């Protein structure tokens, strides 16, 4: 719906009449454009919801749930073509009902004066028979690709930075208000998924955890087991990339907290600067734990394997001796833990992309304590 009027107040009547003619092909006397006779001009746009002017996909095709609007066709069919307005709206007068509707035929033409806009319902809208109970079950099963952690990465231009979802650890991690029931269900789902991939998998447990932390640890452990099973049995690396990112983030956060405490108490070995000492501590601590994690997951990190921790990545096209040392790499995704913000302008990042392994994505993992956008991905240039 487009309303005109305020913007043409300064134009002469003749000019307004001419503009109207150009726009509509309709000759009207100049007096029709006198301010006293002016009415809001309403123009129908099938792609706008007449109730609120918002954009819709009115004429069909892909529709956004809850945004698009169209006549309730299913209801028309069920009621023999007579629209039944929602509860609470006044009934339509017989004169307002188009002839075509009266005969049970909907010609699909929008008639603003005859049509009750309130009869429009959001596409795919279904009145719910009962209020939905909020469930956090879905949030307890982590996605198996990095896409939800870096929304927008697929459409990003090469070399650009894509920030991780604000609270990706919370959103995709086990829900905070996890209950025993939900945790049991989620655990069973994960165990089922793992045994389908690896029939010999056996979930070892000393008993169901009684604390929230214990339940979260159990779910995190099962997510890691699932990623390991996918990698070992099918060489599928994406779940492992997700689990590595989540593990590194929690590890880096903790190492930062510990490192700051050690620095404050003079327990870190400061060689160049406190910041360098802190960064070195975080890197070393996280790498060591990552190696232990892969060992636990029975994933080899020997040279030549797709999973590497802090090994030389050579660029033999430039120079046989040129190499970079990403903290970790899984297939085409490299990880680097750092305190400073790095971009494509850094020779280190360029070097990662130029390495023979040709990563498509470098994920910069920084402590959450450093503030928003701490962790982000850089897309390989030229893609």
């Amino acid at each position: 719906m487009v309303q005109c009027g305020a913007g043409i107040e300064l134009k002469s009547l003749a000019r307004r009449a001419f503009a109207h003619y150009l726009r509509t092909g309709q000759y009207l006397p100049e007096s029709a454009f006198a301010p006293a006779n002016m009415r809001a001009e309403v123009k129908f746009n099938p792609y706008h919801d007449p109730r609120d002017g918002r954009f819709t996909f009115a004429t069909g095709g892909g529709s956004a749930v809850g945004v698009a609007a169209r006549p309730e066709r299913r209801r028309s069919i069920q009621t023999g073509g007579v629209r039944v307005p929602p509860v609470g709206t006044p009934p339509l007068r017989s004169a307002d009902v188009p002839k075509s509707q009266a005969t049970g035929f909907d010609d699909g033409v929008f008639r603003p004066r005859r049509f009750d806009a309130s009869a429009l319902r959001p596409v795919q809208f279904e009145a719910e028979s009962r209020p939905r109970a909020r469930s956090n079950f879905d949030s307890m099963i982590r996605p198996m690709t990095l896409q939800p952690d870096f929304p927008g990465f697929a459409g990003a231009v090469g070399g650009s930075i894509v920030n991780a979802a604000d609270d990706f650890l919370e959103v995709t991690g086990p829900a905070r208000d996890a209950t025993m029931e939900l945790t049991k269900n989620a655990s069973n789902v994960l165990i089922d998924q793992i045994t389908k991939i690896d029939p010999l998998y056996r979930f070892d447990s000393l008993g169901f955890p009684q604390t929230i932390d214990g339940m979260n640890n159990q779910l995190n452990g099962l997510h890691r087991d699932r990623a390991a099973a996918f990698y070992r049995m099918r060489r599928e690396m994406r779940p492992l990339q997700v689990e590595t990112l989540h593990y590194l983030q929690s590890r880096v956060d903790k190492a930062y907290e510990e490192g700051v405490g050690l620095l404050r108490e003079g327990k870190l070995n400061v060689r160049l600067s406190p910041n360098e000492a802190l960064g070195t501590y975080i890197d070393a601590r996280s790498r060591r734990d990552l190696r232990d994690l892969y060992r636990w997951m029975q994933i080899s990190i020997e040279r030549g394997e797709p999973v590497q921790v802090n090994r030389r990545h050579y660029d033999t096209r430039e120079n046989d001796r040129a190499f970079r040392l990403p903290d970790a790499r899984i297939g085409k995704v490299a990880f680097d833990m750092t305190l400073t913000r790095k971009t494509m302008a850094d020779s280190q990042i360029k070097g990662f992309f130029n390495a023979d392994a040709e990563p498509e994505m470098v994920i910069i993992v920084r402590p959450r304590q450093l503030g928003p956008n701490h962790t982000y991905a850089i897309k390989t240039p030229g893609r």
Partner: protein
Amino acid sequence: MSRAYDPYIPETIGELLDQLASMTGSAPTFVDSLGIFPRTIDSEFFVLKEGLKVVRKKIGEERYAQCVEMANRMRALFEADPEDTNGQSQAGRELIFDMEDVLRGKPPPR
């Protein structure tokens, strides 16, 4: 994690340095702060000594013997100060820093 903990043994000097840095942060109890691995002082010094064996050839007998002796001393220091209150744990950390220098091939520690 109820499976037996089978820690990763460092294979290079760089990996040993990562192990030492990790020990700096978790000393004197060496408990894993994330609660994932059931680490103890035994498991940590097992990893350190096995890692030293792996790089023994690379660093030479003299430096290897020096590192093993330092490892024994630092363990005793950490065991003598499990609450990190009487200064012996800090002395153990200083030994870790000295061992890092030895592994890097820097001049012998003070």
